[in-house]
């Protein structure tokens, strides 16, 4: 873990007001180097506004954003060099070929060779179509071209707004693997906003959840990283698939009691042929042994950690637009 190094991005008490409406309210967030960082929030919560402020497309009403040690406010040209981004849809010049589009962006940063352009074309898997005009591209191909232009200058911070939008399952998987590799091997910080929660769960090390312009939760999704998701020290929900759920419940409740003699709390899911209870990791094997000794056939044991979606709905209260 590179937690010792300085965060690549520091969002410092940023507020954005448009008219009398406060879009972002005193948001502070640090992005550590080399992590895939998810940015979640319901529609209208201020995700895109935050991203726009990070890349200087919008001004902050208050606060500052420091990228790679330079302020996006006062030292824009220096700060933005660290950033490669797609903001919302990857809109390209449709009347130019994919290659010319990349050339266009390559010219705007010094030191990008033709080889580098060919390299990102390869990475994006666009070799065959790169000399076609962008207007003939599908949404997924434009998305790939968008990622390619963001990677041209090897940025230390990659900001992707809904990057999996329009990609087919193979493309999503490829992108996910690539982003993870980029973070792990090159130390690139990847900042991804997405609505696809299951996707974020697979991709991110950490997620920040914002609602109505405020940061409401920050949690780690990697084992050992944080406390929120079923770590070893906390009991987690465990499901046992058995042949006779009622009998299994009776066996367990007879044997396991709290010191005051109250039987263990468990839930019988007759339909699934399963029982569910809270257990520590060490207890699971013993519970299994108990069940087997009681003549119950156990087919499967699995832990029911809450999905990110459940957690997301829990913290945002399930509201869609505020």
């Amino acid at each position, binding site marked *: 873990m590179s937690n010792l190094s300085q965060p690549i991005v520091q969002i410092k008490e940023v507020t954005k007001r448009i008219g009398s409406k406060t879009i972002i309210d005193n948001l502070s967030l640090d992005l550590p180097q080399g992590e895939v960082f998810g940015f979640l929030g319901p529609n209208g919560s201020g995700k895109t506004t935050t991203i*726009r402020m990070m890349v200087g*497309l*919008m001004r902050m009403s208050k606060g500052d954003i420091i990228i790679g040690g330079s302020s996006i406010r006062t030292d824009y040209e220096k700060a933005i060099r660290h950033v490669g981004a*797609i903001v919302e849809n990857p809109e390209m010049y449709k009347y*130019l070929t994919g290659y010319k589009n990349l050339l266009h962006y390559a*010219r*705007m940063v010094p030191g990008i060779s033709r080889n580098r352009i060919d390299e990102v074309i390869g990475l994006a898997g666009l070799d065959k179509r790169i000399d076609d005009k962008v207007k003939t591209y599908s949404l997924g191909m434009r998305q790939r071209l*968008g990622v390619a232009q963001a990677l041209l200058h090897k940025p230390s911070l990659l900001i992707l707004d809904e990057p999996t939008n329009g990609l087919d399952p193979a493309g999503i998987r490829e992108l996910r693997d690539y982003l993870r590799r980029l973070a792990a091997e090159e130390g690139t910080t990847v900042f991804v906003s997405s609505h696809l929660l299951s996707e974020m769960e697979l991709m991110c090390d950490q997620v920040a959840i914002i609602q109505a312009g405020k940061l409401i939760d920050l949690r780690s999704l990697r084992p050992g990283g944080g406390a929120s998701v079923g770590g070893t020290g906390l009991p987690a929900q465990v499901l046992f698939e058995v042949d006779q759920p009622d009998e299994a419940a009776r066996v367990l409740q007879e044997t396991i009691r709290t010191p005051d003699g109250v039987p263990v709390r468990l839930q019988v899911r007759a339909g699934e042929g399963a029982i569910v209870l809270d257990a520590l990791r060490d207890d699971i094997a013993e519970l299994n042994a108990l069940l087997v000794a009681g003549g119950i056939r156990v087919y499967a044991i699995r832990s029911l950690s809450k999905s990110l979606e459940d957690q997301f709905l829990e913290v945002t209260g399930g509201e869609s637009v505020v």
Partner: protein
Amino acid sequence: MFDFAALVANENMKIFRRVRSWIMLGLLVLLTAAISIIASVTASSTIKMWDMTSMELMILIPLANIFCVIIAADIVASEFTNGTIKLLLIRPWTRSKVLLSKYVSLLIFVLITLAVVYVSTLLINSLVFGYEGGVMAQQVFGVLDPGMSAWSYMNQYFLLQLVSFIVTVTLAFMISAVFRSSALAIGLSLFIVLMSEVLSQLFSLVNKPWVDYVLFQHLNLTKYLRMDAALGGSNQDMMTLGFSLAVLAGYYIVFMALSWFVFTKRDVAA
């Protein structure tokens, strides 16, 4: 500071990789050729090369102006309309420099357009009607000064046209930067340019001192070429070329300041 020329090269690529620009330039050449050839075939009397050039300029210059204004009105606004402005601005360049690169490439387009008109009218008419040397501007362009040659008139005419082209494209450029919508910017700019002659006549009827400072009174600079310097203009028209240029310069500064202010200050929400 690295290469600003690369930014201009980008903008030029965006202008000249579109079929539109080539159609515009091609049309100017084609129209010249068509008018000259049709005239030479159908005319009963013999037509001279300079007369035809003079006539064609009356059609081609306004058309060239319209084309330049379309490019100018589109150059900033289309980036917003297509959403490409976001990817364009998140590069290590300040917004001022991005805007300047667009303005420079626009001026290049204006120069190319006027050059195309200049070369094509002279060349095509020389080919069709035969080159005619030693002609005085008095005979063909209706200039009062008897000492001016046709060539000298032609060069001065294009120089003055270049000035008014620059003012009108800068106006369109400003509208483009302020309204951020291609359709609105092109429509509004074209309306202003097409109406300028009518508006100019309308304003001439107003008998107030501020009328002399209205933009439309000064866009037609070539009228000064036809005036006799000795006469100093009639008492009805007291304006001089210097005065017109000064007024245009004033407007130019306002257009530029407004374009820059709006483009660099406003949030991008496209």
